[in-house]
């Protein structure tokens, strides 16, 4: 918490005020364009699904009904467990996917076709023609400017009709055209008009604005008539069942497309102006021409549909490029809205692809990691750029408006997604209140991404180039936003399926706390630690790649975060949680029975996770904007310290210390700690925003004790609070007995994946070993004994120790344990055979195999009974 002070070299002051080079970063609107196009293409998926239901719906339903009758389960339960149902419907689902994807492919193909046809239409309708030979000098000047822009011969000028008064760019990829108004074309020697105008249009081409804008426009043109299909079919067939939930979503989509298209076009104008300002005349030449531009109407609907900013807005950006980096509520809203709109459609489409390999949950991962990077490029990149530019001038940026926009966007996007329009559901919306959790987490994720941006901005003078800066922004932002999209979508689905009782179980287990999330959180912690550990020297200057026109500008002094204090905040919080745990144990005494022991372990895990999340409060109170980023390091540290504290206490009370216990405890502690950071971050940010006027202590030495005190106090309060409400977080033994259905749900999410996962792994491994042609009999037997038997023994031991409440669940559980014991017996026989099976061995294997198969069947039947019980 020491301040990072950077000295100013008085002997080499900057000649001019810092004018940031904002074009080094890719524009966030590029990512927004891509999400826009993806969202529109994904809407084509919906139509494909509609066509499938229309053409093959009856056959598909019959297949699903048969599979449900034969195997139990459903599409939603297949998310939580690997089941026969998914495999049974795989064929029908493959057909559905093919037709659904065809919908998007048709829209995409039409859009691409239009992309190449549209320029021909533009030339014809707008009466454009090549520049005549008499304007050969204008052609040459244009070519020279194109060469300066790095575009060479890829762009050709065209002459508009006498009535054309503005230039514009258009064309197919690789064959771009700039249509010049005659009044400009004939004045090619007028450097105050021709040059900035042409340079502006060439900048549109260089920034890929032409391709992006036309793609978005044409995808919509291709999609719009296709979207009318369900309405037409409904009217013609008299089946209007889906229209009530459909038509207004389509209308809303049309409104969003119109608003967003204009907003994106307006945003791109700033970049084109700034690139044109690199002409020899500088920004003042472009500003001179902008002053002659027609300012769009700024009232009513015309204002929101205007394709150009006002003259005043353009001039303010030309005078100070930092203005264009400002991000606000609308930026967060649009990006998040489009991502949330699209995710359910993608998940519903790709989910069947994973059914044959029992990994339907991967559909959520895939969808989230497709859209997460786009969200990172849209929201995260914009924030990082704004933070960096502001930091280079000694200022700051508040991310709260963007974050609130992102939160609202996630809520609205999920609510209005076409996937919710009555054609099946992959993402839960049965309990809309859970959307608020998603929204809150989106606010937190945006704040965390901005916090990381603040930390990395401190590191800017050490970064070798702008590419490293923006690649880091996209990469780290992708990790934050992909995990956000994935976790909130899965959480909502699980909560819909089994309410809070199932959701809390999923949070503790693989469905919402998988190992990849654990490692992702640790990667983010490292990313937060790097800039703290290697800060720039005191006499650092603003990096050249951030300054337009160069010049030596001292890196402004500002408080920053150091590694050791950040680690200390986490350690103190984790230590406090450990102390609270010990105190609780001393007051409550030993748990009575395995059920209560298990419940307490889960409660401890929750407590450590919540405390890890509270580090965002301590970090933000001290570091303000950097706090949310600092918490990415302090949180996992707190979780690790809390885990160690738990193990120490457990061991000191006579428990066994093993790796399995550590990993079982630390994984949810770290992952849930991250979620807690996302959910607590917004609350802390609002409080911090309210207190924004209060000055911070100047030096780190005086801030460290305050930070540690805040961390300890909050950790203590939250530990006590978590333990006080543990019955909400963990189902106790008595409640489990009284709620068979709830326990069965929890069993499905917690135990079944563990059983099927381990069993599948060891079976595959055993088969590979036994069929290994390179090994002889004794070697195979030894390998079975050393590699297959131990994990299966661990699993059986774990399941035998697991507390079970209701008689129905206990009976089902017993079948699984017996089946696994039979499997274990088989592998022990193989291991003891030294590769040569006797007649007795064969008889034993056959008996055990039959026993195992019988037990598995009974286990499946009992699970089905419980799943379908009222």
């Amino acid at each position, binding site marked *: 918490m020491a301040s990072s002070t950077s000295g100013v070299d008085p002997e080499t002051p900057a000649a001019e005020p810092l004018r940031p080079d904002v074009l080094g970063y890719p524009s966030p609107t590029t990512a927004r364009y891509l999400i826009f196009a993806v969202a529109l293409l994904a809407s084509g998926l919906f139509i494909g699904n509609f066509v499938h239901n229309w053409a093959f719906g009856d056959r598909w339903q019959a297949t699903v009904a048969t599979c449900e009758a034969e195997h139990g389960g459903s599409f939603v339960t297949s998310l939580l467990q690997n089941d026969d149902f998914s495999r049974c419907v795989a064929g029908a689902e493959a057909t559905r996917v093919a037709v659904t994807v065809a919908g998007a492919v048709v829209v995409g193909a039409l859009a691409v076709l239009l992309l190449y046809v549209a320029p021909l239409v533009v030339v014809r309708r707008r009466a454009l023609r090549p520049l005549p030979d*008499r304007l050969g000098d204008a052609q040459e000047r244009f070519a020279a400017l194109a060469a300066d822009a790095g575009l060479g011969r890829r762009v050709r000028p065209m002459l508009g009709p006498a009535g054309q008064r503005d230039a514009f760019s258009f064309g197919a990829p690789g064959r771009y055209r700039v249509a010049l108004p*005659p009044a400009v074309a004939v004045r090619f020697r007028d450097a105050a008009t021709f040059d900035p105008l042409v340079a502006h*249009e060439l900048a549109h081409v260089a920034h890929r604005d032409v391709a992006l804008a036309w793609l978005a426009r044409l995808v919509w043109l291709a999609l719009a008539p296709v979207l009318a299909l369900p309405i037409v079919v409904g009217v013609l067939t008299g089946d209007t069942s889906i229209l009530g939930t459909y038509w207004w979503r389509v209308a809303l989509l049309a409104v969003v497309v119109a608003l967003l298209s204009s907003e994106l076009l307006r945003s791109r104008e700033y970049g084109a102006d700034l690139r044109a300002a690199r002409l020899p005349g500088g920004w003042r030449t472009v500003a001179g021409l902008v002053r002659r531009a*027609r300012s769009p109407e700024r009232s009513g609907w015309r204002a929101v549909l*205007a394709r150009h900013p006002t003259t005043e807005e353009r001039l303010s950006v030309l005078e100070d490029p930092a203005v264009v980096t400002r991000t606000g509520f609308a930026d967060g809203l649009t990006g998040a809205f489009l991502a949330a709109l699209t995710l359910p459609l993608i998940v519903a489409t790709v989910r069947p692809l994973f059914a044959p390999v029992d990994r339907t949950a991967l559909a959520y991962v895939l969808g989230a990691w497709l859209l997460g990077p786009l969200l990172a490029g849209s929201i995260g990149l914009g924030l990082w750029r704004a933070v960096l530019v502001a930091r280079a001038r000694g200022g700051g940026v508040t991310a709260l408006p963007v974050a609130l926009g992102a939160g609202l966007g996630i809520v609205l996007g999920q609510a209005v997604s076409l996937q919710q329009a009555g054609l099946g559901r992959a993402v839960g919306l049965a309990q809309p209140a859970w959307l608020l959790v998603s929204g809150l987490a989106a606010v937190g994720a945006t704040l965390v991404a901005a916090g990381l941006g603040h930390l990395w901005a401190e590191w800017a003078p050490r970064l070798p180039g702008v590419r490293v800066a923006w690649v880091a922004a996209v990469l780290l932002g992708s990790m934050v936003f992909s995990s956000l999209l994935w976790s909130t979508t899965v959480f909502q689905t699980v909560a819909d399926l089994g309410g809070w009782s199932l959701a809390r179980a999923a949070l503790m287990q693989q469905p919402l706390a998988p190992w990849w999330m654990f490692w992702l959180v640790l990667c983010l912690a490292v990313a937060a630690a790097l800039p703290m550990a290697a800060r720039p020297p005191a006499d650092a200057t603003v990096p050249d790649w951030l300054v337009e026109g160069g010049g030596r500008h001292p890196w402004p002094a500002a408080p920053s975060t150091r590694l050791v204090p950040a680690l200390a905040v986490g350690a103190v919080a984790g230590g406090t949680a450990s102390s609270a745990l010990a105190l609780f144990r001393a007051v409550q005494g030993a748990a009575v029975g395995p059920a209560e022991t298990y419940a307490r372990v889960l409660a401890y895990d929750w407590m450590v996770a919540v405390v890890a999340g509270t580090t965002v409060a301590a970090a933000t109170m001290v570091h303000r904007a950097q706090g949310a980023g600092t918490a990415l390091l302090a949180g996992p540290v707190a979780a690790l310290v809390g885990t160690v504290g738990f193990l120490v206490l457990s061991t000191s009370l006579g428990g066994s210390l093993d790796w399995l216990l550590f990993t079982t405890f630390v994984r949810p502690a770290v992952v849930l700690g991250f979620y807690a950071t996302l959910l607590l971050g917004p609350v802390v940010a609002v409080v911090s925003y309210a207190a924004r006027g209060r000055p911070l202590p100047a030096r780190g030495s005086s801030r460290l004790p305050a930070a540690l005190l805040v961390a300890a106090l909050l950790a203590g309060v939250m530990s006590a609070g978590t333990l006080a409400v543990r019955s909400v977080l963990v189902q106790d033994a008595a409640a489990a007995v009284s709620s068979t259905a709830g326990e069965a749900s929890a069993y499905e999410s917690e135990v079944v994946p563990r059983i099927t996962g381990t069993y599948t792994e060891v079976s595959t491994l055993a088969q590979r070993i036994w069929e290994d042609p390179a090994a002889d009999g004794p070697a195979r037997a030894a390998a079975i004994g050393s590699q297959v038997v131990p994990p299966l023994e661990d699993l059986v031991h774990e399941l035998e120790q697991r507390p079970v409440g209701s008689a129905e669940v206990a009976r089902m559980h017993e079948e699984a344990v017996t089946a696994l014991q039979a499997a274990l017996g088989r592998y022990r026989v193989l291991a003891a055979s030294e590769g040569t099976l006797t007649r007795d061995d064969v008889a034993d294997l056959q008996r055990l195999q039959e026993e195992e198969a019988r037990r598995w069947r009974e286990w499946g039947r009992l699970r089905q009974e419980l799943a379908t019980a009222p």
Partner: protein
Amino acid sequence: MTAPDADRDLLEELARTVLEHSAPEELVIFEETSEEYFRDPDGVLNPARRDEALGFGLDLALLTPYVLAVAAPVVTFLLQTVAAAAKEEATPRVKELVRRLFNRAGDRSPGAAPDAGEKEPLALTGEQAREVREVALARAKDLGLPAEQARLLADSVVGGLVVAA
């Protein structure tokens, strides 16, 4: 009076003369501009205001169509004036006389003698020149041009005619 009603040859000639003084760079595309103008004068003078996607936001018009539009009533006025003054009713003869009012020698210094074979130009009186200016100004205002631009255009038109000193 609309532009196509005027004598097109005279009108184009006067427009060229005016442009030689006021916007010579536009002469390079004069033929096609004039062609478009006479095909659809309103479409050229009052095109639909477009907020072009990926445009600049400019509203830069050629001067040529406005000169042609303003030249129409001016030519009509000149034809009537010359016909009355010369008591001449033969149209070709009147047109020839009007043509001699055009200040075509933009690059000829004032007072210099015309080239051999070139007919001596006629000249408008000061009063006639003021009337021409008023006709041009009224038309320019009718076209919706701002007052300052309308005045400049009217002055340019008068500048394209020979006025007695």
